[in-house]
């Protein structure tokens, strides 16, 4: 079952896992890392999978949903809930997976640490998709640190095929060592595609639930002995890591030896094809014996890893002299060019051109635009949140002041009010999306009501989780598995939380939007304004609007909407007929009635 040194390639490893010889008629598929994780989970006999969407992890569950006849899968309310649902399934001895983006693991951190003690009766794989380079995230946190802190095993694939293979292996390791396993991906693993060899599913029926309070009811009296078990488990895992064949030395030139893991391995192989390489795959606990053997075999050790000096710190602590972050950047993601540069290459390239930037924008017809236009017009302070609507912060709308993390807008607005009182309470709103509100806005709202706040909370309800690709959520009336379900109404939640002033508005109606926001910010009671209109990408467009050139004075009021379909040519507004969705907001702001 378990793999050990002396097995030559990942493929024979797989065949051993399956307990059968390799079938050469395996299907080859071109898959993203996320699809490959889903496939690996399916092949491993996973039965329960939960997630809250978050780039770059979202497609894992979307792909698992393709196997819904074999795997129960759900969009959970947030990552913490996802982890708790999956943990419950693990109690029943069921192979379970939970997936999230790196910052999602912060939300789920509480149960993750507990599950580190409780262990895994059924295989438990926790997928964290980190985002070096922050393509779609608020920070560059390196979740390898979680594996060390929680004291659980960690696997890091370096391409799609390994993503599939290590997901499967993760379930085996989890059950063998009674530990959750952290499968750590990065954007370039999740969203890169490569050729994957797919295999058949192995069935692992649930082992069944047996009450065991010393294991799963972690009161101090139970947790103390569990901690001892955790430390012993870590020692066993380290022995295993030292025998793990995918912690692999590839001897080459002995002048330089490079230690690396994850996607960085690919950059190393491409840039330094002749160097000796230690490819680490089970990266917590680290295989100290293999690392020491490798370091002895080369003159100089270099460590190539993205973001934190995780390997570097640990390997230095083993008493090995290494070159690491003094050469390899700690910020941003790596690529072959950056690696070449870090080690002295001075190849000439075309210089970067000084040209206008093309930032992402709210789509033409986006209903959020109406609310942001009004916030901008009324010069309100807006504490913001995470979603497409964070783009409302960009010029020309400039309608958001802060963005901290999922759900933070409400607490932030209340805190500002408490700190500044009357100075700000008539001029501040919290802006949060529908999915984000379900995720972690509700507790903030309760806090405002309970602590006698007067905050105005605007819920931008576009009836989907738009930013990450239109996933369902508790307010849409559908599940990930495509079933109809109870639609939870935002207004009912707001009322149940004790908010008396709850209004539903159409953000395309700028006049009404302005009136109500203006009125509610002044109110000395909490209010919830639900700006409701479905995401423009999910509905059929209306016919495009046109500018009557003779009437247009080139005043640029319409430009203030920041709509990508409107531009100025020869001092007149022009509307791109392919981009325009006919929302009509520009016609509303035009004082000359030049847009029809």
């Amino acid at each position: 079952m378990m793999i050990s040194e002396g097995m030559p390639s990942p493929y024979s490893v797989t065949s051993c896992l399956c307990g059968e010889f390799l079938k050469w008629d395996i299907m080859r598929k071109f898959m993203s890392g996320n699809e490959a994780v889903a496939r690996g989970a399916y092949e491993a006999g996973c039965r329960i999978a939960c997630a809250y969407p978050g780039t770059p992890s979202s497609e894992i569950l979307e792909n698992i949903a393709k196997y819904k006849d074999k795997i129960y899968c759900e969009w959970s309310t947030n990552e913490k809930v996802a982890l708790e649902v999956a943990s419950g399934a693990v109690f029943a001895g069921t192979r379970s997976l939970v997936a999230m983006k790196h910052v999602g693991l912060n939300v789920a951190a509480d149960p993750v640490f507990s599950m580190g003690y409780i262990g895994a009766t059924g295989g438990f794989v926790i997928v964290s998709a980190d985002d070096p380079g922050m393509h779609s995230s608020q920070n560059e946190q390196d979740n390898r640190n979680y594996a060390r802190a929680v004291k659980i095993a960690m696997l890091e694939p370096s391409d799609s095929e390994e993503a599939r293979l290590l997901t499967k292996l993760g379930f085996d390791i989890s059950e063998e060592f009674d530990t959750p396993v952290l499968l750590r991906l990065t954007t370039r693993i999740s969203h890169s595609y490569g050729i994957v060899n797919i295999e058949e599913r192995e069935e692992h029926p649930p082992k069944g639930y047996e009450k065991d309070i010393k294991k799963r009811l972690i009161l101090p009296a139970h947790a103390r002995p569990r901690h001892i078990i955790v430390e012993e488990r870590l020692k066993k895992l380290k022995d295993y890591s030292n025998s793990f064949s995918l912690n692999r030395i590839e001897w080459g030139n002995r002048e330089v030896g490079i230690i690396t893991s994850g996607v960085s391995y690919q950059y190393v192989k491409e840039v330094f094809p002749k160097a000796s390489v230690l490819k680490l795959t089970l990266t917590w606990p680290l295989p100290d014996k293999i690392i020491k053997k490798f370091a002895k075999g080369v003159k100089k050790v270099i460590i190539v890893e993205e973001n934190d000096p995780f390997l570097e710190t640990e390997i230095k602590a083993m008493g090995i002299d290494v070159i690491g972050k003094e050469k390899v950047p700690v910020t941003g993601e790596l690529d072959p060019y950056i690696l070449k540069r870090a080690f002295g290459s001075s190849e000439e390239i075309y210089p970067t051109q000084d040209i206008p930037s093309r930032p992402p924008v709210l789509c033409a017809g986006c209903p959020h635009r109406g609310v942001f236009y009004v916030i901008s017009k009324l010069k309100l302070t807006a504490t913001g949140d995470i979603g497409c609507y964070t783009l409302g912060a960009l010029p020309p709308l400039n309608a958001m002041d802060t963005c901290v993390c999922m759900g933070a807008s409400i607490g932030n607005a209340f805190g500002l009010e408490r700190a500044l009182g009357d100075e700000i309470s008539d001029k501040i709103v919290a802006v949060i999306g529908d999915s984000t509100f379900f995720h972690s806005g509700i507790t903030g709202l309760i806090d405002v009501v309970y602590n006698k706040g007067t905050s105005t909370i605007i819920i931008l309800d576009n009836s989907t989780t738009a930013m990450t690709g239109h996933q369902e959520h508790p307010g849409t009336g559908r599940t990930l598995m495509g079933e109809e379900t109870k639609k939870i109404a935002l207004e009912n939640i707001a009322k149940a939380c004790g908010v008396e002033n709850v209004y539903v508005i159409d953000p395309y109606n700028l006049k009404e939007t302005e009136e109500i926001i203006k009125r509610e910010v002044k109110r000395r009671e909490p209010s919830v304004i639900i700006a409701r209109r479905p995401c423009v990408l999910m509905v059929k467009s209306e016919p495009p609007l046109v500018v009557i050139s003779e009437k247009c004075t080139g005043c640029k009021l319409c430009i203030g909407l920041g709509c990508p379909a409107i531009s100025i040519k020869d001092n007149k507004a022009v509307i791109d007929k392919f981009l325009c969705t006919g929302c009509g907001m520009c016609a509303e702001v035009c004082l000359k009635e030049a847009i029809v």
Partner: protein
Amino acid sequence: MTKIVICGVGGQGTILASDILSLVAMEEGYDVKKSEVHGMAQRGGSVISNCVFGEKVYSPLIGLGEGDILLAFEKLEALRSLPYLKKNGKMIVNDYEWLPITVASSDATYPENIIKTLKKKVEHLICVDGVKIAADLGNIRTTNVVLLGVLARFLPFKQESWLSVLEKRVPKKTVEINKTAFLLGFASEA
């Protein structure tokens, strides 16, 4: 190993184009990797996808100065992504202008004569009016496939492979028009 960078504006169909390219390379027996970024960048922002094929491919990501071919769906994006092209690399540029929001709200200007600027810098420059070809065909949404047709002239893949992948990968109703778009791009005098 051949490294191809495709750049454009979110919504122009660069991802579908790099999908098709990768699947053709795979069908022809090459090792292939592809990389792109989803999420926030897709909302009308600059997008880049990378496709690398060869006997054995390691990095899915193409660094600066590494692209053998740069296929640009939009002129400003061609200029932006130029540093990804290696010095003697080939550039195919769609002669099409899409104003970024920063220009539309008029605090920046769209550079003039981009093609001329590019010609001075890039020896192997192929300029094509893909939008016109697609519009003449009756569907500007096939521009991405027209451009793939142009790209195909410089790649070692059989035409059958392209057409068979297209058939599998584009919506059923548009198979025929996409095939024609591909062939028009392939035969264009760009």
